[in-house]
């Protein structure tokens, strides 16, 4: 391979912001300098007006593989991810069968060899994701799994969760919890509050999330195990996480782009595209989450959840929860951070960031810290400098685009952003030195 030069961009990483070209040979960055010519026949990738960021890392993607190839596969999800600027995703284990054994871990890993991003496989905490007894976490750890979760549901049994955290802590793995107390969330389909009361849709109170977050933070203190809280959606959970930080506990948290941009008022349409779990929350929670992102307290993870079209044409309470996220995440986050208004909150006191400030938030919350949580540091989420792995996201911060559900790389179309205008679009994605997305189009 002759290599390439990414030319004309502004490089943003943990070390700061500078105008520079980036030269890549094979899988590695070989030079980051103010001007690099194309001597030696290097391919030139135009990035003028763009930001070059370390490739994004998604801690939370449902690849539906094995089990639902009509919805998504490892390959199609990785194409969607690459189009969204991601160079690594964590494959959630609530597949069919669930990723609760070395055999299924190896199956996904094998599929991942043909993917357009790195795919880190997460394993379940409990066998069959049934919440009854521990899955073979040690064996899966040996096979490379670093994050364990029963995502899709929380581990309801506090004693079992204690054991899981003790055991996983001993392995050096991380436990990621879907915080939802099932009895409190009983039969709910949207956030319980003003809108659910008005629409006559059974609600899920914020407390269903907060009760379990509080329990698990306490268990992290008890066991010393690293705890990652998935898709934080309420102000109350953020308060608990801050208290955990103050106490020095090994706790991290993520928020999803939809919770940073959409409020429960969207459900007034009764359109199941706005059904997700945890549910969209009131605008005040959206603002709390955006503020937490800006202040570096949480990372962004997509909770990319493909569903077939007919399942989202059911009445709201019969439709499955979940939204696509990989292809829109950066555009949504960028729009939220730089426009101030969010997409639907209607609040006028949202933070407004400059390009440089927003880029710094994106680098930390969508690449550097997620890579560390997933155990991918080194290969992912590094600084853009000679010697680093060539995993890059080239992002045009000024490009505006309208999301079209029929023109996504995902095999599914259940995006809540169909028809919405976003500011900021991924132009190129470079994975292990290979341009896998050029001018927004996947090359394979």
């Amino acid at each position, binding site marked *: 391979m002759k290599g390439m030069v990414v030319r004309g961009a502004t490089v943003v990483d943990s070390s700061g912001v500078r105008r520079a070209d980036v030269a890549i040979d094979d899988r590695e960055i070989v030079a980051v300098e103010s001007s690099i010519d194309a001597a030696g026949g290097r391919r030139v990738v135009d990035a003028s007006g763009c930001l070059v960021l370390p490739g994004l890392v998604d801690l939370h993607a449902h690849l539906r593989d094995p089990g639902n190839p009509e919805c998504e596969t490892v390959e199609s999800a990785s194409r969607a991810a690459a189009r969204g600027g991601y160079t690594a995703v964590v494959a959630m284990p609530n597949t069919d069968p669930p990723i609760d054994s070395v055999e299924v871990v190896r199956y996904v890993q094998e599929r991942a060899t043909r993917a357009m991003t790195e795919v880190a496989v997460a394993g379940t905490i409990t066998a069959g994701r049934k919440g009854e007894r521990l899955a073979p976490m040690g064996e899966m750890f040996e096979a490379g799994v670093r994050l364990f979760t029963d995502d899709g549901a929380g581990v309801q049994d506090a004693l079992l969760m204690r054991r899981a955290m003790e055991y996983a802590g001993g392995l050096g793995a991380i436990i990621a919890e879907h915080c939802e107390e099932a009895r409190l969330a009983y039969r709910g389909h949207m956030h319980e509050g*003003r809108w659910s*009361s008005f629409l*006559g849709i059974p609600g899920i109170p914020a407390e269903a999330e907060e009760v379990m977050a509080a329990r698990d933070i306490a268990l992290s203190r008890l066991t010393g195990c690293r705890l990652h809280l998935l898709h934080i959606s309420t102000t109350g959970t953020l308060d608990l996480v801050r208290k955990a930080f103050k106490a020095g506990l090994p706790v991290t948290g993520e928020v999803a782009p939809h919770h940073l941009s959409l409020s429960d008022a969207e459900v007034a349409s*009764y359109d199941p595209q706005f059904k997700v779990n945890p549910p969209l929350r009131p605008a005040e929670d959206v603002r709390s989450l955006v503020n937490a992102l800006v202040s570096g307290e949480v990372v962004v993870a997509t909770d990319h959840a493909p569903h077939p079209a*007919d399942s989202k044409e059911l009445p*709201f309470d019969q439709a499955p929860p979940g939204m696509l996220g990989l292809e829109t995440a950066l555009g949504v986050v960028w729009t939220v951070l730089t426009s101030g208004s969010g997409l639907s909150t209607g609040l006028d006191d949202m933070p407004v960031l400059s390009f440089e400030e927003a880029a710094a938030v994106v680098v930390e919350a969508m690449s550097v810290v997620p890579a560390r949580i997933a155990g991918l540091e080194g290969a992912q989420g590094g600084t853009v400098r000679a010697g680093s792995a060539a995993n890059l996201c080239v992002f045009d911060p000024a490009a505006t685009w309208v999301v079209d559900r029929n023109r996504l790389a995902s095999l599914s179309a259940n995006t809540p952003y169909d028809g919405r205008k976003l500011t900021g679009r991924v132009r190129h994605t470079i994975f292990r030195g290979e341009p896998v997305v050029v001018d927004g189009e996947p090359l394979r």
Partner: protein
Amino acid sequence: MSRSLLSVDDLGAAGIQSIMRLSDSFAEVSSRSIPRVPALRGKTIAALFYEDSTRTRLSFEAAAKRLSADVMSFAVKSSSMSKGESLRDTVQTLGAMGADAFVVRHASAGAARLVSRWTDAAVVNAGDGWHEHPTQALADCYTLHRRFGGAAFTMAGLHAVIVGDVKHSRVARSNVKAFTALGARVTLVGPATLMPPCLDGWPVSVEVDLDRVLPDADIVYLLRLQSERTDESLLPSQREYTARWGLTRRRAALLPGRATVMHPGPMNRGVEIDPEVADREFCVVGDQVRNGVPVRMAVLFWLLGSGLPTGESSGQVLAVDGGDAHQPDSIGASDEEVR
């Protein structure tokens, strides 16, 4: 895109009053020996009932037939839906058969709104989950209008007390909107477990103690208590509900003489209301059912008819039908006489 009635909000006060005026005209039709007019001759109304509701379905069918419309009835329990055709496919199939309107009853909130997205035909919400049941509210408003009289179709100055399981009640949601739109003051009474979790933005007051509000009530609207509410621990027992929120004889004596007692039916005698109190003159449950037909005629005509038959022009749609009630679809000279 046709008109639809998905929520009382689609009407507002002026719309409710238009329906009331139309209902007055159609009530007169209902009282004739041959209660049928050709107002919707040639129109096809599809009744999609995904929940058991014989009363509402029969009321709509009677209304459609009295307007000379054709009725396609599709009764299916939601439990069998997963095995069969999807709601969307059913709507498109019946649409292809020429349905001009869908009357939709479904256990899911928002179902009628979904149907309206999939069809150009008019859609009437005949009850969607806990959300709304607008024609019940219209029948209730019309019943009150008949009882209290007055030409203005307003409820200004009246105090309506809605008692019981507001949380799970589509009737309560629609009636709160309709009563307040017409100017009434509304108080919700019941245990907190049966109140919606958040009432911000609802133009109502809330009271736990029924005895306190009864002396000041013009209308007491009792909601049905489903027996499963005690299984879900929303209530300790039906007995305790009756003791605290039932319209017992003792409580009935607290009501002012002008008060009207309503219930969407079917009543649990001995639970929401004392069996003897239910048979008193002020309990207008029978009127609510009776008035359901002209009100639903008015709604179907409002959605599918051409123009509002107000004033003199009402003669056009309200003229006596051809007279052959057994052959409503026959095309004969009598149709021409209507003009």
